[in-house]
Structures are given as C-alpha cells and as structure tokens.
C-alpha cells in the first residue's frame, strides 16, 4: 500500500512540472551530455559541502558540550541544569548510544522486466523505511538509526526523484539497515507481526527484497550530526 504513497499526486505534479521543464527544449546530444555532466558535478560539490558542514557542526556540538561540562564544574547552578540538559540531549538523539536491539535489513530486488508490471514494487521506497521505523517505535524502540542516520525530532523521509533523503539531505542507498535499540524480542515480535508492514512483506515474497531482521546484543547508534533551530515556537506560560 505504501508504494502508492510514493506516487502521490503532489509528487507527480512537482516532478511532472520539472520533467516538462527539462524536456521543453530538446538539446542536441553533445549539449545534453555537457548539461548532464554539469548537473552531476553540482550534486558532487553540494554533497561535499554537505559532508563538510555536518562535520563542522558535529565538531561545534562537541565543543559546546565540553564548554558546558567545564561550566558545570564552575557553577552549582549549571550543574543542576546540566543533568536535565544531558537527558534532553539523549532523547533528542544528540548522543551516541549502544545496547541490545534489532537490525532490520532490506535491499532493492531484481527488476522483473515485465512491461505489465509498472508498480516499481521491486525497489525499496522511503515509505518502507518509514513504516519499519514506525513499527519499531510502536514496539518499544528507544532509539533508531537508518543507514547510520539517527532518527531525531526533525527527521523527515522523502524523495528527491529516485533518491531517498533523510536528515539534511543525506542520500540513502541500498542495502538499507534500520538499527533499533530496545528489547530485541519485543522489536522482533513487532516486525514479524503479520499485520505490520504487510505490503512490504508481500513485495518481499514476490521481488526478493531481502527483508530480514537480526537480534543483537550490542548495537551502536551514532549521534545526530547537527543541531535543532527553534525560531517560532515559544514555551507557553
């Protein structure tokens, strides 16, 4: 079912417009090659910048935390706040965590090359990952990461064309690994429940998406690699 969400009306409108725009003036093959190359170079440059900015922000986060630790040593008032702050940091996904849990695996299947099958059911969709994450939260997960990207309050899964993006345009590609900390049995029971992610399980049987899960005694989850900006919401009262 969630496959259909991937072909939502809005996506089609936006993408359709973009496609129309790109195709409105056919370019000669040589120009097209040059344009394709330029577009891909832009992506490479922007992804380099993206990685650099995340590394810088991670470094700044570490500096902020070190300064706060130092402040707590100097001030009892800070010391009292600091314990609460550390708790909130953990909840927000700003701290690396480890523990027992479940690893869920998934990859694109084989293209059936069937002209009658236009479902793209053999590919992993962002909604598949979102659904797995959703089931894991509902099964008591305490923290989750997808391909090393921590799920945090600002996390949104979405498509940019065929690309699956999360957390500041981090591009996910297969094989996909969803790691969740929590009671491994409860998490496994949640995922194996026939009512959960039923459509994905059906596609897995048809297309061989490698959908499987593995209990672990010690999984490691990285911290989120940036921070949260709150500009509009104010505490009430």
């Amino acid at each position, binding site marked *: *079912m*969630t496959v*259909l969400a991937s*072909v*939502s*009306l809005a996506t089609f409108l936006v993408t*359709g417009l973009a496609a129309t725009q*790109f195709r409105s003036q056919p370019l000669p093959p040589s120009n097209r090659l040059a344009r394709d190359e330029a577009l*891909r170079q832009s*992506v*490479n440059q*922007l992804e380099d910048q*993206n990685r650099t*900015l995340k590394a810088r*922000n991670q470094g*700044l986060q570490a500096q*902020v935390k070190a*300064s706060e630790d*130092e402040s707590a040593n*100097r*001030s009892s008032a*800070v010391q009292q*706040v600091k314990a609460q*702050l550390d*708790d*909130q940091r953990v*909840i*927000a996904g700003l701290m*690396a*965590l480890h523990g027992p849990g479940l690893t869920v695996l998934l990859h694109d299947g084989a293209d059936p090359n069937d002209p009658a099958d*236009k479902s793209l059911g053999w*590919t992993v969709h962002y*909604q598949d990952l979102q659904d797995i994450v*959703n089931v894991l*939260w*509902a099964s008591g997960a305490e*923290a989750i990461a997808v391909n090393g990207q921590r799920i945090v309050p*600002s996390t949104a899964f*979405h*498509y940019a*064309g*065929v*690309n*699956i*993006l999360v957390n*500041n*345009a981090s591009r996910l*590609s297969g094989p996909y690994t969803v790691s969740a*900390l*929590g009671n491994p049995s409860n998490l496994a029971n949640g995922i194996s429940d026939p009512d959960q992610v039923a459509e994905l399980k059906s596609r897995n049987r048809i297309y061989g998406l490698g959908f499987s899960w593995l209990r672990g005694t010690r999984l490691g989850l*990285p911290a989120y690699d*940036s921070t*949260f900006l*709150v*500009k*509009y*919401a104010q*505490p*009430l*009262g």
Partner: protein
Amino acid sequence: MPSHSVERTARAQRLIVVSLIAVALGFLLVVQLRSQAAVARTLAAQDDTSVALLINDLNRANNQLIQQGAALAQQEAQLRQALTAGGADVQGIQKELVTLREVNGEVPVHGPGLQIRIQGTIMDFELQDALNNLRTAGAEAIALNGYRIVSSTPVQSHGNSLLINGHAVSSPLSLLVIGDPEQLGPAADLSASSLQTRVQVDIQRQTDLSITEVVTPRPLIYAQLGK
C-alpha cells in the same frame, strides 16, 4: 479476522483511487522512473529530474546546516566568554534546555503556524507524508486532535481508524503546526493536493496558536551512553 479484512478492503479501495490518480497524472513519469530506476540511485545513472530535485534539496539542507552551524558557533562563543571571565553562562545553558524540551515535545508551546482541518478519513501513510512535508518545511511543534506528535510517535492505521501512539483519532482532524507559515504553507498545500480528491482540507494561517499537549519521554532501559 473481520477487522483485518475491513482494513484490507479500505486499503484496497484507496489503492484503486490513488492508483487512478497516479496513472492519470504520472504515467509518463512512471515509465521514466521504471526505465531508469534500475534502480539508478547511483548518481551517474539517474534521470535529470531526479538530479535536479536532489540539487534543490541539497541547497536547502546546506543553507540550514550553515544556519545551524552559526547558532552553534554563537552558543560556543558565549559559553567560552563566560568561562574566560571566570564564570559560567547559566542563562545560555538554561535556554538550551528549554529549546531541547520544545524539540522533544515535553513542554506546551505557542507561536505562528497553520491549522489544517481535514474532514474525512485518511490513512497512516497519508498523515505520515504530510508530517514529512511539514517537518521538511521546518515544523517545530505538531499536534493532532489533542495528541502531540514527535518523530518517535507511532502513526498507524487499524481499519479506518487512525491511531496516534495507539490512540484513535477521528474526523474532523485538526492538525496544528508551529513554524514559519511562509514555509509551512506550500508544504501543507502539497499534502492537501493529494488528499483533496477524497477528503475536505482547509488550511488556515494563524499568527499565534497554542499546542498544550506534551509527550512523556520513554525511559531508556536498554540503551546506554556511548558508541
């Protein structure tokens, strides 16, 4: 089980509706994606539309990362300044605590944003898509029919019921979102355009709306600090 068959029937009906829309509007694109998606998520093999959309998202994300970096640098400078002066930036640390409690949905908040009213039944994936769009547009706090929604809040369908953290919510749905209305508006319109074929969606900008609901943090029993 009867409820499961009802759920399957409802899902099947929606499948047909969404399929028709998708086929009508996206036929060419589906063909394009199908032929090129092999699955061409490696950059070299992607279609131009995908690459263009990726560039757009990367630009937006990088601008956000620059803003986040500037905020962290300022925070660090203030902490360092207080330490150099022999004290501690208690106010700055308290402010950060408040910010994180807002982010985690643990305090009531108010601010500008949108009230989105939905008359009719929607499925979990439809709400989740709307939440994704709104978060990408910078939503800072979200609540639906009296339940605060954060990223760890399970959104599920059971039959025609929409469950938020296990609690059923029913039509009319009132989705409250705090953030920059200029950014949230187009994101809400995007979601509404896909929903409006079946349900009535009304989006209103608000200069100041309140979200009083909070989430209780789940205790960490299994997770421990450190990699």
